[in-house]
């Protein structure tokens, strides 16, 4: 089949899809599929040929077999909140939207696990665990609408990454449909399980390029007995960075250690109205959790350390509700920045924590060099920064400078032993930089794995690498 013919979906393909899924679960009209032409990533869009909504794993297997038969690329998607363009359709592709496979199938309090379909919403998983007195820690900024399948595919992080790690650290098992339609279970409820290669981890962060995750078995933790949130205000960015270093050096690992610069905190305050100090140069939002005595000790130590580094004030959240409000406000940071400019290009470079202060200064210098407006916030405790370029995608001249600044930020990160993506995935946005980070041979190894599992290159082709 020629490339030109590949963009229009053949009637036979579509009618076979509709016959299996039902016509209402296959969308092809322009008004229906236009809204599936993008995800949460700025300035990227591409119309697919069709969008299908499977209801079961068998449906997914059918779709993949059919796509293979018709040589049609398949892009899997959840709620479309990804920030690296991982679920952006290809021209002529079939979008497999798992949003309707959203059941939470089991909360196993005896084994501290939860099993859910891939389309289950992260927030609902958190709530289901919470209702059983348990805790699912990963909390990406979009958790109130992101799907667990998408979190697994991009190996999403969140605010609690510092102490609790990322999605990968909670995946005990996966149901995966391979390119040929075969269905595999990888992993188990066993805390210890070393049978065979650890293929489960291969699929975590694979961005839909190796198979389609249809079910997830998650590890849960006991709910921490106590939590305390603190808000530290600084008159200089450097002082905030120094406070973070001091906390880590004092061997304290808070649950969250978030940083917001002045531009970001003002936008967040304009939206959430939670009383953030608008005049501060930077704030740290810190949460400690665990045994009540340990939480009290840590909170006190953090207060002292922040004060010693020149914090102008350190406040404690008075109630759990206020703490939740502050964390929710922080999660809105990326979106709230769009109050300043229509297009927000969000970075998620990550550096070793000792490099943080230097990296922040480097970002400021890059903003000046390219005459761009860059706001910075991020998960300082784990070295994961979100320098966000505030721009307008319709301004082509500025967009060229944005690209150049983007490349400089990556360059600076790699020079400091960092990674091009801490939690958003490579997708399309970071694709040009992956080879530089991995080196030729590691990069080839990734391609070798891809060819082994998807020999015809139909699963989310063109993502991560070409």
């Amino acid at each position, binding site marked *: 089949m020629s490339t030109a013919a590949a963009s229009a979906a053949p009637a036979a393909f579509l009618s076979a899809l509709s016959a299996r899924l039902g016509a209402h679960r296959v*969308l092809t*009209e*322009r*008004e*229906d599929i*236009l*809204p*599936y*032409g*993008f*995800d*949460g990533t*700025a300035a990227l869009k591409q119309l697919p040929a069709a969008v299908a*909504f499977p209801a079961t794993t068998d449906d997914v297997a059918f779709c993949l077999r059919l796509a293979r038969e018709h040589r049609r690329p398949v892009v899997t998607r959840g*709620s*479309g*909140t990804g920030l690296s363009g991982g679920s952006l359709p290809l021209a002529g592709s079939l979008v497999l939207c798992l*949003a*309707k496979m*959203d059941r939470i199938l089991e909360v196993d309090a005896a084994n501290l696990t939860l099993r859910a379909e891939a389309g289950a*919403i992260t*927030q609902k998983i958190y709530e289901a665990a919470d209702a059983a007195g348990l805790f699912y820690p990963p909390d990406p900024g*979009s958790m*109130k*609408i992101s799907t667990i399948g998408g979190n697994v595919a991009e190996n999403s992080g969140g605010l609690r990454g510092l102490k609790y790690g990322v999605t990968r650290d909670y995946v005990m098992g996966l149901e995966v449909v391979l390119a040929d339609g075969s269905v595999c279970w990888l992993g188990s409820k066993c805390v210890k399980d070393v049978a065979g290669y650890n293929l489960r981890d291969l699929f975590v962060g694979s961005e839909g390029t190796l198979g389609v995750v249809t079910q997830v078995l998650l590890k849960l933790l006991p709910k921490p007995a106590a939590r305390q949130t603190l808000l530290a205000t600084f008159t200089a960015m450097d002082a905030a960075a120094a406070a973070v270093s001091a906390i880590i050096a004092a061997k304290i690992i808070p649950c969250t250690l978030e940083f917001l610069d002045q531009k970001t905190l003002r*936008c*967040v305050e*304009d*939206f*959430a109205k939670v009383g953030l100090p608008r005049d501060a140069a930077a704030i740290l939002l810190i949460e400690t959790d665990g045994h009540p005595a340990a939480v009290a000790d840590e909170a006190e130590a953090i207060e002292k350390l922040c004060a010693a580094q020149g914090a102008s004030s350190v406040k404690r959240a008075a109630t759990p509700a206020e703490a939740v409000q502050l964390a929710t406000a922080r999660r*809105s*940071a*990326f*979106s*709230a*920045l*769009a*109050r300043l400019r*229509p*297009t*927000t290009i969000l970075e998620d470079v990550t550096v070793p924590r000792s490099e943080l202060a230097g990296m922040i200064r480097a970002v400021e210098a890059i903003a000046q060099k390219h005459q761009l407006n860059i706001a910075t916030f991020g998960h300082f405790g784990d070295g994961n920064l979100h320098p966000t370029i505030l721009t307008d995608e319709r301004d082509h001249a500025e967009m060229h400078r944005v690209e150049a600044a983007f490349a400089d930020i990556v360059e600076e990160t790699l020079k400091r032993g960092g990674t091009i993506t801490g939690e958003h995935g490579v997708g399309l946005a970071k694709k040009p930089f992956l080879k530089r980070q991995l080196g030729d041979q590691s990069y080839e190894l990734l391609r070798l794995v891809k060819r082994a599992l998807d020999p015809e290159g139909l699963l989310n082709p063109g993502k991560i690498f070409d």
Partner: protein
Amino acid sequence: MHCGMCLPTCPTYDETKLERHSPRGRIALMRAIGDGELEVTKSFGEEMYYCLGCLACTTACPAGVDYPKLFETARAEVERQGVLDSPKRDFIRWFAVRFLFTRPRLLRLVGRALYLWQASGLQAMARRSGLTNLLPPDLRRLEPQAPVIQRRFSHQLIRPVERPADAPAVSTAPLRRVAVLTGCVQDLAFADVNRATVDVLLANGCEVHTPPVQPCCGSLHAHNGDLGSARELARRQLDLINPDDFDAIISNAGGCGSHLKTYGHLLHDDPVYAARAAAWDKKLKDIHEYLVSIHFRRPLGTPSPSSAPSTDLAPARTITYHESCHLCHGQKISAQPRAILRAIPGLELRECAESSWCCGSAGIYTITQPETAERLQHRKVGHVLATGAEIVATANPGCHLQLENGLRAACAPTVSEPASPASPPIVTHPVVLLARAYAAEAAASPRRSIHGT
């Protein structure tokens, strides 16, 4: 920005899990039209009318996207291009939007006729005899949902100017002059709410002006793609009430208030009215918002059990609060009605789940999208009944009717359960309860000053 944070708060996305039925999807379609990638099609038009216009997305949007403006513009464009036109739709739109709701005296006449039909027993007779079964299916479905018209309308209950009885004697502060807007449906079906609004303002030392004949505010028109009529009605409103003459202009209906606060934008390029409209926006206040801003007087009486242990023998009445979308999302007024309810002696406020989720009334949504409207109604009624509250307070006539109809149906005897399971909770407006509380203290101590102790 297309982060998707609006998706979980959108009732139509929640119902369908389809992007086009979400705010993000609808904006993508509008943008595609703007960018020349899509025409204004029938399917696009249908999508714009599948949106409830509840504005929950605006509360959720960290980026502050102005969805109401986009949405009104899109609906106006759908009407301008006529992609949804059909003889029946055209007639209904002309009759309701252009004819009936631009003529307040005619509307009252229709209301009067409806009242006679309901009060004379003719309606009951028609229902019993099965005569209503002869109506076309659409009307047969709508007939029981029609509001019960009250015997007296606002102008029969409220004098054009009312002053607090003892105001000159006790007040040292200058009187606040306020104007009260009586609305359309509120005027016909809930004139008692308008009376109560005036009462609570009087009890808080306001001189209240209530023009006896008022035009419709135009929200119905603006929300349904007829911005021309909306502008005309706004001008008439501005002719009737000069904002410079008043400390505040009061609305007690969430849907009207939300639109009334946007006259400045609506008439921003009107050479004659732009300035007056901008002044109007600053004076326009929702009744709850205004009462809290002037530190309304807490009625005296038994403190509610939530604030202090009750010593009164009468048990507290339980109440829950349903938020009108255009009050909480359109005007961001959420705490004030609760503050008023909590201030009323003998009431125990029980929060209901999803209190700010649309009830499905949404202007004329029950007529245009009956199935979705009914599903949302069931969802809402379920949450309200789950609280066990005896009273539901809400501050919008559309919600009021939707709740009343839904609760009546849910609590009606059925074939399998012939004995009525329970009498449905009473639906009312917060200011009605506040007015009653003021009246009760006056009855207990007739000579006490209305300005409190």
